């Protein structure tokens, strides 16, 4: 990075450290923090969407839809996250390749499953074997986002389902008395009022999601835990910057990162709760009204 870093063995103290912290490998490490934040940014809205759809399905008047919604939450919630992560990523990956194989290689005669091997035609590989490392990373990341969204969507569905049930019945009946259709009641009265009931549960989920991001490592994405372990390990003089076991410092860094992330989230969420409580027929909303009056 800096000109004086050409020969690290001649440096010590602060210059050494400044060179050490700006190696290509360290930039991979810093980049992985952004990957984690990006994962959160992609997963949170997707999981919320999945949750919303799940909750809507679970309280739908149509029986099969109701079954679908309930089965989704029950199944995903009933399986340990790790098992789901390990299983789902392989299933999704092989499922896509299998599907593509059926379309692009109809003349392929060899079986796809040969003993322990899973073998599709080369054109059906996802991503293609000639794709750059960046595509592979993007693919791994996309799989991670989908898996996280499905898992956390199931929890969110249950929270939102409960929140929808918690909206006072009188509110809905009043809306109906004003002549609103079912759809209008749902959109104008139920949904705006249910958020305040859903928020404590959703904020819990958000913090759990933040803390679950090291599972990325299981999905083959080189995340902050991977890099912290790799960078912190003892380095002999094969490396340009030899050092003893520094994992403690790297993991301490991660600890601080997660504490800051959850602390900031809590600040934002408490603000959001206050905003959503305003004018609501809840104890918090009532207290606000009285304080204002």
């Amino acid at each position, binding site marked *: 990075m800096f000109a004086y870093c050409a020969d690290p063995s001649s440096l010590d103290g602060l210059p050494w450290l400044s060179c050490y912290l700006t190696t*290509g490998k360290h930039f991979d490490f810093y980049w992985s923090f952004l990957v984690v934040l990006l994962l959160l940014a992609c997963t949170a809205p997707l999981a919320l969407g999945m949750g919303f759809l799940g909750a809507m399905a679970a309280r739908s008047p149509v029986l099969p839809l109701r079954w679908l919604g309930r089965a989704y939450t029950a199944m995903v919630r009933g399986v340990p996250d790790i098992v789901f992560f390990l299983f789902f990523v392989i299933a999704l990956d092989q499922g896509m390749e299998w599907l593509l194989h059926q379309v692009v290689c109809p003349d392929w005669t*060899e079986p796809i499953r040969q003993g*322990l*091997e899973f073998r599709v035609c080369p054109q059906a590989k996802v991503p293609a*074997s*000639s794709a750059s490392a960046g595509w592979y990373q993007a693919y791994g990341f996309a799989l991670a986002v989908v898996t996280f969204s499905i898992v956390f969507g199931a929890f969110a569905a249950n929270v939102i389902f409960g929140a929808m049930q918690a909206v006072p019945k009188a509110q809905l009946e009043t809306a109906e008395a004003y002549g609103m259709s079912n759809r209008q009641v749902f959109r104008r009265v139920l949904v705006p009022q249910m958020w305040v009931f859903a928020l404590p549960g959703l904020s819990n989920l958000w913090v759990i999601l933040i803390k679950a991001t090291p599972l990325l490592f299981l999905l083959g994405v080189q995340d902050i835990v991977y890099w912290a372990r790799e960078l912190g390990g003892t380095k*002999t*003089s*094969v490396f340009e910057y030899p050092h003893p076991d520094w*994992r403690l410092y790297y993991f301490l860094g991660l600890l601080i990162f997660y504490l800051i992330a959850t602390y900031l989230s809590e600040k934002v969420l408490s603000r959001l709760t206050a905003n959503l409580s305003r004018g609501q027929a809840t104890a918090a909303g009532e207290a606000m009204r009285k304080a204002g009056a």
Partner: protein
Amino acid sequence: MKKLLLVTALLAFGAGVASAQTVRLATEGAFPPYNFINDAGEVDGFERKVGDELCKRASLTCTWTTNEWDSIIPNLQSGNYDVIIAGMTITDEREKIINFSENYIPPTMSAYMALTPDVDVKTGVISAQISTTQAGYVAASGATLLEFATPDESVAAVRNGEADAVFADKDYLAPIAAESNGALVMLAEEVPIGDGVGLGMRESDTELKAKFDAAIQSMKADGTLNALIEEYFGETGVTF
């Protein structure tokens, strides 16, 4: 229609399916001097050099990727990559599920490293990397086996007293002992394990295996392989 869209999207993900097949080489990236991630963040080490040279000789386009050691064989079988080049010792047990190329490193010694030279390796707590031939050896030797995901963690366990000694490939341990300022010592006992190190490939990939075997033979014949072994493992490196 939906299916068609999905397929198109998947094809696009492949970033234009090229006609020439690329061979994907997978390594662990945590086992210097065999393979490691250098300070620039790239795969480096003896196997990087050997792999690139083999691909050149076999006229293959190769790309590198890293994978956790413990899942390196299952991910080969599910097609995430085509070749394992990660200091993997050829053993009968592994030979049953994957194909090995001819060895590109002759059988080498495994050794113990400890804080003091008087550790009893038959009764003590011995650390090793999970799913390695060394871990299997320790388990059979009567000592208490302590397994770790990475080689580095198995060494760290000795430093912090969790294990009495670590059992691993000698070429991996020797530089660590030499640079520990006397904190770690190699024990006298050495054990020959396996039939050398080879490339791991799927059993169905016989054509690829033939290409790599030919390339390895040509590197053995003109002495480039021996030169690389000496470069990375020093004078004591076992050559062909």
